[in-house]
Structure formats: C-alpha cells, structure tokens
C-alpha cells in the first residue's frame, strides 16, 4: 500500500489496539443493546417526543403519499386501506423473501408502485421514498424485530453473515471487529454501538436529515475505505437481513434520532 494508506492503517490499528487495552469488552452479550442507550439525554428526548422529533415531518409526508392516487388511480390505501391497521408489524418482518426475491422495505415499496400502481420506482434517499418508509416503519414502533432463519432465507442470511464477518476495505476491518468485539469501547471519542438497525429510517444529526439504513451502511464502508455496496443491491439486502436477524427481539424505534 502507498504511504498515506499505510499511515491510515497504522492510525486505525493503534486506535483499535489502545481501545482493547483500555477494558475487556463483554462480547458475550445475552441481549442485543440498542444504540439509543448510548445517546445523551437531550437526544433521547428528541427521539421520544413527537413534538421534538424532526423525523415526524417525514412521517406526515408519508401519510399524504400513502393516500395519493398514482397514474392508474391506485394509491397505497386502495389495496392496503388504513396503514395503522394493515402496516402494523410489517416493518418488523423485513427484509423478507417475496416471490423468490429478497426484498427490503424500500424495495417492496418500489415493487408495489411499479406493479400495482403503474408508477415509477422512487430513488433511494429521495424525500418520497424516505417519507413512505418512515410512515410504514412508524406503524410498527415499539414492536420487536421478528426476523427468523427460514429455509427460504437461509442462503441470503448466510451471505449477509459472511459480509458482516469478512474484512473489507483499505483498513481491512470487518463489521464484527468494531460492532461485536469492541462494542462499548470508544473510537475517536464516541462509544462504538452494537450496530443494530432497529431505529431506521433515522434522523441523523450528522446528515441533518432523515436517511435509510443503506445510507448508513455505505458510510461505514467508506469509513473503512471499502467499495460501497450499491443502493438496492442484493448484497445490501443480504446484509440488512443478517443485521435484522442479529437484532431480533429489539423493539423498533422508528423513526429514530441518532448523532
């Protein structure tokens, strides 16, 4: 590797080594911990109180889109009726195998639009897709993530698991090395979370806006200088599936607030 790359690697190794020396991390967690617990009281209050949570604007926008008829006069409501009833618990079961294909929630929203509404797919991180995702996920707020290993998702789950444990990028780090082995220790002043996807989509203070899990995962990958998975790719869906399974039982906090 070139000199600047080597210096990055050295810096990262030193930080990680000093992090391990500080305290023995308890990687044998019996229960997954939400990164909500690591936030300041102000940020927790921001998430908990709908009158303070900026993400609620996107939920409101999502409700409008839910009822908006598309080109063939079909809205989401035309098939699914009142989202408060029909979408309750739905977000806890994604990603899931639908007609032989692994779908994330965003992927399924687009699938519905294209096949049932005669509409075009919404771009990832667009206001409309984020609003719909936020509105649907919000209907499952407080419900535990319910992903199970099944014969249908077994192969996808295995691929996602491999992604999580495999070293990647110029910094040659795997997700597990930070988020499993060193969760709870500090990286550059911030505590390392276990990395559960139970609050997405989140209003991230860093982004100053709402964003999806895939956006966050791409951030992580660029953080270790790895080639980022593309939005909507099978690799993304497989990793999302594994992460959701790993977080099973954690209540959904969507839409969350994170620093």
């Amino acid at each position, binding site marked *: 590797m070139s000199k600047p790359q080597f210096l990055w690697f050295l810096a990262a190794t030193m930080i990680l080594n000093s992090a391990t020396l500080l305290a023995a991390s308890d990687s044998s967690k019996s229960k997954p911990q939400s990164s909500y617990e690591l936030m300041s009281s102000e940020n927790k209050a921001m998430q908990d109180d709908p009158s303070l949570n900026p993400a609620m604007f996107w939920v409101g926008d999502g409700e409008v889109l839910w009822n908006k008829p598309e080109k063939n006069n079909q809205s989401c409501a035309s098939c699914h009726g009142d989202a408060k009833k029909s979408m309750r618990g739905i977000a806890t079961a994604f990603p899931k195998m639908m007609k032989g294909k692994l779908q994330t929630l965003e992927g399924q929203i687009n699938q519905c639009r294209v096949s049932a509404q005669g509409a075009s797919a919404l771009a990832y991180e667009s206001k409309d897709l984020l609003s719909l995702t936020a509105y649907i996920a919000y209907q499952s707020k407080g419900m535990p993530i319910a992903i199970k290993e099944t014969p249908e998702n077994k192969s996808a789950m295995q691929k996602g698991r491999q992604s999580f444990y495999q070293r990647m990028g110029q910094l040659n780090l795997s997700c597990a090395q930070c988020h499993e082995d060193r969760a709870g220790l500090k990286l550059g002043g911030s505590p390392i979370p276990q990395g559960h996807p139970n609050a997405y989509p989140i209003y991230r203070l860093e982004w*100053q806006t709402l964003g999806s899990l895939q956006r966050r995962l791409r951030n992580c990958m660029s953080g270790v200088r790895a080639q980022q998975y593309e939005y909507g790719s099978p690799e993304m869906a497989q990793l999302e599936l594994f992460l959701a399974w790993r977080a099973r039982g954690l209540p959904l906090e969507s839409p969350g607030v994170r620093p």
Partner: protein
Amino acid sequence: MSKTSRTSITMPSSAKKGSIIEIRAIAQHDMESGFRYTESGKLIPRDIIRVFTCTYNDVEIFKADFYSGIGANPLIIFTTIATETGVLEFKWSGDNGYEAVNQANITVS
C-alpha cells in the same frame, strides 16, 4: 428549498386565565447555512428561515430572528400568558420567498 413547508405547533388547547402556557413551534427546513461547500469547492448559498412571529388574537406576543447558527428543522419553545380565548397565529418567513403559517385555538376560562 421550496417556498413553504410543513410546520407543527404543540400547545395546550385550554388554559386557566392568567396561567403561563408553553408553546413549541417547529418547521421542516434544511436551514442551509451558507457556510457549506460542494465536493467541487463551490459555496452553497444561504437559504434559511429568518423570522418567526406569533400573534395572539392579532397582537404580536413573540418574535424571533434566526441566523445560520440555528439547527435544521428549527424548533423554538417559548411561553405566553393565556389571556383570553382565541387564535394564535404562527408565521415563519425566510430566504428565497419562504413562508409558512400555522395556527392553534385556545379556550381560556
């Protein structure tokens, strides 16, 4: 930023005469500070909410000037005395012709 956006008001719908009520007002707005650059080094121009006012039965009871240092999706929490039954009107205005209004009714006994 578009010319208007969603806003939200949280305050009690009824209060005793003379009591102090808390009002929370939040607007959906990126509040582009004017200090950020694109990847190619070009300055992104400022686009923020500049003024927020609250009137109570047409009498202005609160005003705030916002600058670039106010966070995105600006929130302001302030108080006022519940003097009479009526309507509180809230107005946000800012760069590029941005304007948003909201209102809330209060019953004062």
